[in-house]
């Protein structure tokens, strides 16, 4: 199949075009801008049937999305960084209203100091919102996962919004070759229009977004908790269907060279590409090292991570995010939590890298490995440290 040259943002816009959502409400922000611009082109050129709502802010964008999704529409939006921050109030309402909005995030650092470059903290903060949260290693994944996100979120056993993250600039503005999915294929995969049980229907009036106080609030939240659990089953089904449709295999947690690995990197997004390159170089030197790539951050597949860690001496967690004053960074807290009490306890090195677009080179990955291995050899963990910070 012929690959076409597109940026990560274009890959997402083309995915949205194939999906042909009923409603898109979005506001441009670097490095997501291309997604919104391209999609506006598709609307203007009559290539999609979408009602494009040109809102005045991200708070309004997410509000319009919740309204449209509540009415039964298939809805897409996209933002980054400060845009997501402005949405936050409604982001939580989107989850509790059980509106399966799909939102692409061109992951970018949060101000301040003001910065437009890549970092994942923006999307990591969705952690406790009820959203399903996916990350992409390359533009093909950004394209594929944007389409799959609709099928995952809209499943009646899930009904949760889904965020699809692609690293700002390093994917969003980078040209790579992708095999695009056609409108026909996407529609076949999604089985036509969204089928919402609860929607705007004058013959079946209902209320959405009502007050829940001490009497019902916990039950409403508990349903999100249960839906996150059920989502794991649905995600596996959707990945299977995607493989049948495209031949491209997806797993929530991917592993590389893990069979005989004594040490492993664990990371997300485009960092996995650099870690994979480093694994190849270390393997060529005889190092028994592998890679665990987390594709789906929420729901968190802790049991799979535990399984992959069974024979490891040491695990090296690398993430483009941080938690000030926290017991580790963000992902590394999750990793520690799922290992606790599992009976599997590799030594752990925790690194925060690449904040605000700071480049982390393959040589840096080698240094992180060597430093971690030295600690592991002495039987020690390596507490959280920030790679590449000048002192």
């Amino acid at each position, binding site marked *: 199949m012929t690959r076409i040259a597109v940026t990560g943002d274009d890959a997402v816009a083309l995915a949205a075009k194939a999906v042909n959502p009923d409603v898109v409400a979005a506001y441009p922000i670097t490095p997501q801008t291309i997604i919104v611009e391209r999609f506006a082109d598709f609307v203007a050129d009559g290539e999609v049937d979408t009602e494009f709502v040109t809102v005045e802010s991200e708070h309004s964008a997410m509000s319009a999305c919740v309204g449209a999704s509540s009415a039964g529409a298939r809805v897409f939006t996209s933002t980054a960084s400060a845009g997501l921050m402005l949405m936050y109030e409604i982001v939580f309402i989107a989850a509790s209203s059980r509106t399966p909005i799909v939102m692409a995030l061109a992951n970018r650092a949060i101000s301040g100091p003001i910065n*437009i470059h890549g970092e994942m903290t923006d999307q990591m903060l969705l952690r406790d919102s009820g959203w399903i949260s996916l990350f992409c290693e390359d533009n093909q994944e950004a394209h594929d996962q944007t389409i799959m996100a609709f099928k995952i979120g809209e499943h009646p056993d899930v009904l949760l919004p889904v965020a699809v993250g692609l690293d700002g600039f390093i994917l969003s503005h980078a040209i790579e070759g992708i095999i695009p999915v056609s409108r026909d294929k996407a529609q076949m995969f999604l089985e036509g229009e969204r089928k919402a049980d609860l929607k705007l229907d004058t013959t079946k009036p209902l209320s959405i977004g009502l007050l829940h106080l001490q009497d019902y609030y916990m039950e409403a939240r508990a349903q999100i908790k249960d839906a996150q659990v059920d989502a794991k089953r649905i995600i596996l089904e959707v990945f299977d269907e995607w493989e049948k449709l495209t031949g491209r295999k997806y797993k929530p947690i991917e592993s590389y060279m893990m069979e005989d690995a004594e040490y492993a990197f664990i990371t997300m997004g485009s960092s996995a590409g650099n870690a994979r390159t480093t694994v190849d170089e270390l393997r060529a030197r005889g190092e028994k090292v592998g890679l665990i790539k987390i594709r789906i951050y929420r729901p968190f597949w802790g049991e799979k991570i535990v399984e992959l860690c069974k024979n490891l001496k040491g695990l090296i967690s690398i993430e483009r995010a941080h938690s000030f004053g926290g017991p580790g960074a963000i992902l590394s807290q999750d990793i520690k939590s799922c290992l606790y009490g599992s009976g599997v306890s590799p030594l752990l090195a925790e690194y925060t890298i690449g904040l605000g677009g700071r480049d982390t080179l393959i040589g840096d990955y080698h240094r992180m490995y060597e430093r971690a291995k030295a600690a592991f050899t002495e039987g020690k963990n390596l507490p959280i440290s920030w790679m590449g910070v000048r002192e």
Partner: protein
Amino acid sequence: MATEIIDIRLHGRGGQGVMTSSYLIAEAALLEDKYVHAFPSFGPERSGAPIAAFARVSESRFYVKTEIYKPDIVIVQDPTLLGQVDVLSGLKEGGLVIINTDDPNSEGVVNIKKSRSDAQFATVDATKIAAEEIGIKQTNTAILGALVNLTNSSIITLDSIKKAIMARFREEPAKKNINAVDRSFNEVSK
């Protein structure tokens, strides 16, 4: 095994189409079924400010996603950068440097050549070519013919770069840009 990757770093100024140059290299290479990763080193857009863009090209799939610090090839689209930006930074032993200049004997060009006797230097007056063929001094396509010539079509061919230009531009400007590519291919001096 390590994948054979050609790392190209492009230097220019905001507004000269440096990003488009890197994209065109990737788009052309992809037409030859190669694997690519090309992106600009962005700041907030500033017209005239020194910027860089990167293009990685390989026959086989690769996964590295960093900026380029040890280029095989450096392309300098604006001669006024010489002496201001260390365009040779990290250039691999025996690497290729293509400089857009109207004066191959200028102090800047002579000095940079002296500083790396191992490297291969070539110059082309892409600004003049662009002005004459396209009507604007936008050197992003006019520099690429030189690249094809100097690399013996091993990274991208004239045919694929022309196809990439036709896919990216409307018919009329595409023709002009293709003429610029042809002239740059023929007029580059090694």
